[in-house]
């Protein structure tokens, strides 16, 4: 247990756990719903990566910006996108965050700061850098978080974004969720450096490697990076080491991951581990956690039903949001 003035209190840890439990349960429901044939979509499970956005969210305001990627439903939930709108968009329904016209790859919900979700590896970082530039120019005080995977740090846009953000001291945090595999390729076969955070040296910004499955370590690392951005001191490259349990996308059997590596990772599943820690180290009654988990399950039930019951956008709706003026 971490103590001292710069340590999260039990209320903070409970909020982090709540987000983690929401993400885990939501993911389980999403996979079951797709496997039952009720949703025919492509799905990138965030299972195993719950801690990262759940801890970062503690340091963000509702209007801080987030740019994330196709494996991003954990980031979207942690940022506060309502589950009903989220499920409806995943299902392509008119009640979704983008009126059913964005789909799972492009969740956008400015009301909670989720400015865009991108489907092309590495393409979110230049957008996030632009949002941060806008915040700097307008002085709105917002911080931008941009998430990406380990493979994306080999894309040119990563290097261009870090360079510009550093030169202009932009209020952005580059969050690399390093889950060890770029699609089906092991980290060591595609990336030359031992830690992606080492690459920050080239762009004269702090590069921090943190255990992305440790809620307290993650909370502290995010606190420093967000504070630095908010104070106008510039960007940070925050590399969060994690693992994904469910392959690259639903239907991928993870055959390219050694069985021992997968078993060791599952043994350290961060969600049940943290739950037990709250009971053992923080004296949180198990009944409180049971209730919290059950309330989340009910909320997810309602979101799924809402999405399945909603209508698809009609032809008139399909012509909206394309041009500045309404199309005839």
């Amino acid at each position, binding site marked *: 247990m971490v103590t001292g003035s710069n340590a999260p209190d039990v209320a903070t840890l409970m909020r982090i756990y709540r987000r983690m439990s929401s993400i885990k349960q939501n993911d389980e429901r999403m996979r*079951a719903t*797709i*496997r*039952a*044939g*009720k949703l*025919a*979509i*492509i799905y990138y499970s965030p299972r195993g990566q719950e801690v990262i956005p759940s801890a970062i969210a503690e340091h963000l305001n509702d209007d801080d910006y987030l740019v994330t990627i196709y494996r991003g439903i954990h980031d979207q939930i942690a940022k506060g996108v309502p589950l009903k709108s989220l499920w409806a968009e995943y299902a392509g329904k008119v009640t979704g965050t983008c009126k059913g016209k964005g789909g799972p790859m492009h969740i956008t919900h400015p009301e909670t700061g989720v400015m865009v979700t991108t489907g092309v590896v590495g393409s979110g970082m230049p957008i996030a850098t632009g949002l941060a530039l806008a915040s700097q120019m307008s002085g709105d005080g917002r911080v931008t978080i941009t998430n990406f995977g380990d493979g994306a740090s080999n894309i040119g846009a990563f290097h261009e974004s870090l360079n510009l953000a550093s030169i202009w001291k932009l209020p952005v945090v580059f969050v690399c969720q390093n889950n060890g595999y770029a699609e089906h390729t092991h980290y060591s076969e595609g990336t030359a450096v031992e830690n992606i955070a080492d690459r920050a040296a080239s762009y004269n910004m702090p590069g921090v490697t943190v255990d992305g499955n440790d809620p307290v370590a993650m909370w502290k690392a995010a606190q420093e990076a967000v504070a630095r951005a908010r104070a106008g001191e510039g960007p940070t490259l925050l590399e969060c080491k994690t693992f994904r349990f469910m392959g690259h*996308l*639903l*239907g*991928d*059997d993870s055959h390219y991951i050694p069985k021992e590596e997968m078993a060791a990772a599952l043994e350290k599943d961060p969600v049940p581990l943290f739950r037990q820690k709250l009971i053992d180290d923080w004296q949180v009654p198990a009944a409180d956690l049971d209730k919290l988990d059950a309330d989340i399950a009910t909320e997810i039930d309602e979101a799924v039903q809402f999405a399945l019951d909603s209508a698809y956008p009609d032809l008139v709706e399909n012509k909206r949001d394309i041009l500045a003026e309404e199309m005839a």
Partner: protein
Amino acid sequence: MAVEILLPKLGFSMEEGVLSEWLVADGASVTEGQPLYTLESDKSAQEVEAPATGTLHIIIDSTGETYPVGTILGEIR
């Protein structure tokens, strides 16, 4: 209430799949999450779980045939 067993999309470009084998007999009891049938798509073969608990009513029993995503394979009542 009957729950339909629909052929799921389990891959990036999967539009159809081969119903290889029912793992549970028609009319038998099934529990949600229990392996129900084997599905082959272009890249893999995998077992798909029962979407609900109840009695299995098989609608399509011609295993080895290809069907589009969304096909009603059976029901659980």
